């Protein structure tokens, strides 16, 4: 029983990371109907931003304040990156065919990945320890301080996001745009600004995930965004792409199933489990758990 609980805790921690990244996918899809393939790479940039920032702020001891500064800094960097990507790569093709958008996204993703390899060097780097380490053992289940941080920070960010989307004017505007972009425009909403904010928010969350992961698994490399991005994407689809609570649910589910499969079955199928879930969802319930079907009007 304790192993099960342990796996659950591990899964929750991993799932929170996926959830943070998945939120970015789902929000962008909601407003633009675009699968932002480059999102996973933004997460990677967040991790690197955290890395360089923490090296700059090198105190003798890891501290909580320092960690906070690093995280917020990385989030800011990626928010700007997200806005830039949207403005220069996606906005010109916003009205184009789906396939064009897809290829543009792929192009941006490749650009960031290869650019990162050039700028940061292809070898992995090691994320310094940011916060004091401690382990908590509750009823036979070990919870590391990193895991605790991941879960706590993710939860906090998600709550903030939910508040933002439901209660603020900008949040409401975001929802309006995701329902119908043209109608939103006619209602006087500055859709360009809203879309930029959406990208910025999503990217900031991905950056947070990057820093959190850096704290947990200290090894970072320019291609780390690919597999994490893909799994987070599956999470978004599982929860219902375009649906914000769905992304969180999906992330937690994917994280937990991955940990369970590796723990109880075999680690060779670690990556395949996400794809398996993806296919099952799309064949059985393509709108995801919390999504809604769109019936085309004839």
């Amino acid at each position: 029983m304790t192993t099960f609980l342990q796996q659950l805790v591990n899964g929750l921690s991993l799932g929170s990371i996926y959830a943070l990244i998945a939120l970015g996918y789902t929000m962008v899809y909601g407003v633009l109907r675009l699968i932002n393939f480059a999102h996973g790479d933004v997460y990677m940039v967040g991790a690197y931003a955290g890395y360089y920032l923490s090296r700059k702020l090198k105190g003798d001891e890891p501290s909580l304040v320092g960690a906070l500064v690093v995280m917020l800094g990385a989030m800011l960097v990626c928010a700007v990156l997200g806005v830039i990507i949207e403005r220069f790569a996606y906005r010109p093709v916003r009205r184009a065919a789906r396939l064009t958008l897809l290829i543009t996204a792929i192009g941006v993703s490749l650009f960031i990945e290869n650019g990162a390899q050039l700028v940061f060097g292809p070898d992995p780097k090691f994320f310094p320890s940011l916060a004091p380490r401690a382990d908590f053992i509750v009823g036979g289940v070990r919870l590391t301080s990193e895991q605790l941080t991941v879960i706590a920070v993710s939860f906090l960010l998600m709550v903030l996001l939910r508040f933002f989307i439901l209660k603020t004017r900008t949040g409401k505007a975001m929802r309006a745009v995701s329902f119908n972009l043209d109608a939103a425009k006619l209602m006087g909403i500055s859709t360009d600004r809203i879309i930029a904010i959406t990208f910025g928010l999503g990217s900031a969350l991905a950056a947070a995930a990057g820093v959190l992961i850096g704290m947990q698994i200290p090894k970072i490399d320019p291609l780390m965004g690919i597999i994490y991005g893909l799994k987070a994407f599956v999470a978004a689809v599982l929860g219902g792409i375009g649906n914000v609570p769905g992304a969180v649910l999906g992330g937690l589910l994917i994280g937990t199933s991955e940990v369970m499969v590796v723990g109880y079955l075999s680690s060779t199928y670690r990556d395949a489990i996400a794809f398996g879930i993806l296919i099952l969802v799309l064949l059985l319930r393509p709108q995801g758990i919390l999504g809604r079907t769109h019936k085309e009007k004839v």
Partner: protein
Amino acid sequence: MRALVRSVVLVAVLVLLNALLVGKLVPGVSISPYFLQILNLAGINIILAVSLNLINGFTGQFSIGHAGFMAIGAYVSAFLSITFGESIRSAFSFAPATVQDSVLLLVVLAAGAIAAAIAGFLVGVPSLRLRGDYLAIVTLGFGEIIRVFILNIDAVGGARGLGGMPRLANFFWIYLFAAATVAMVTRIVNSSFGRTLIAIREDEIAAEAMGVNTTRHKVLSFVVSSAMAGVAGGLFAHYLMYLHTNSFTFIKSFEIIIMIVIGGLGSITGSVLGAVLYIVLTEGLREFAQYRMVLFSLLLVVIMIVRPGGILGHRELWTFFRRRRAAEAPAPPAVPG
């Protein structure tokens, strides 16, 4: 009759070209192995691009799992030639070695194509019910699952890769199949079946309302396309003589998509152009070493912004020549034969 004559001429030309390129025709005249490899890989790309365009460009179905079918064709044919190569060869021991090799190649390619076609059917039937983005994601998923599945089969090498295939494919065979693929897809597109596919692309609901069994057409086109990818895979395996699943990731699928988009979705000559251009670009930029991929991806984004229709859009290469001769009616002519 015309088709038969054309085929014979084509075969003769290819045989001569092949001999010329490897230096057997005119003494002292040959191209470097490097260029020959590029040429051959371009040929395989042509098969992949034209077959993918059938389902993406002409039927309008957003599929990005093509690498998976290529992988199936590659691994099935490789496994067969390694395991049964000798027995098949010995069955034809009365014939010269080249004939033995040819028969072996054709047999394993056929097997690879059939395997890929079956996979295409199994993937297509459930997936083609989905539209747009969802179909894209599901095909991406299937492509990866196929790859991971193959990776975990020890009998075909698993993570070590698979080697030991005889070199059965060369310029002649690759371009023969490339030509055959182009011819076959052209015929399909210019027939009633092809018209129906394009109608499905234009407006699937209207097509269904006009009596078309859209599912049947989509699945058939998907199966044919997958089979062709399987042939490309088999040729790939027997040219490079080594396989690893890393060659068949979603990145490979993306590459093929890029080829057909650059050339023009819905244009067969466009796909040929795109396939050749792609390899020329990736090789040509090789001298920029690390900047290569950065430049390439930037180029990609720029092309999408500036000319998303690709080089030829929906048209074929010959419409440009006809347009110069006859100043009026712009209707694209049907390819005879």
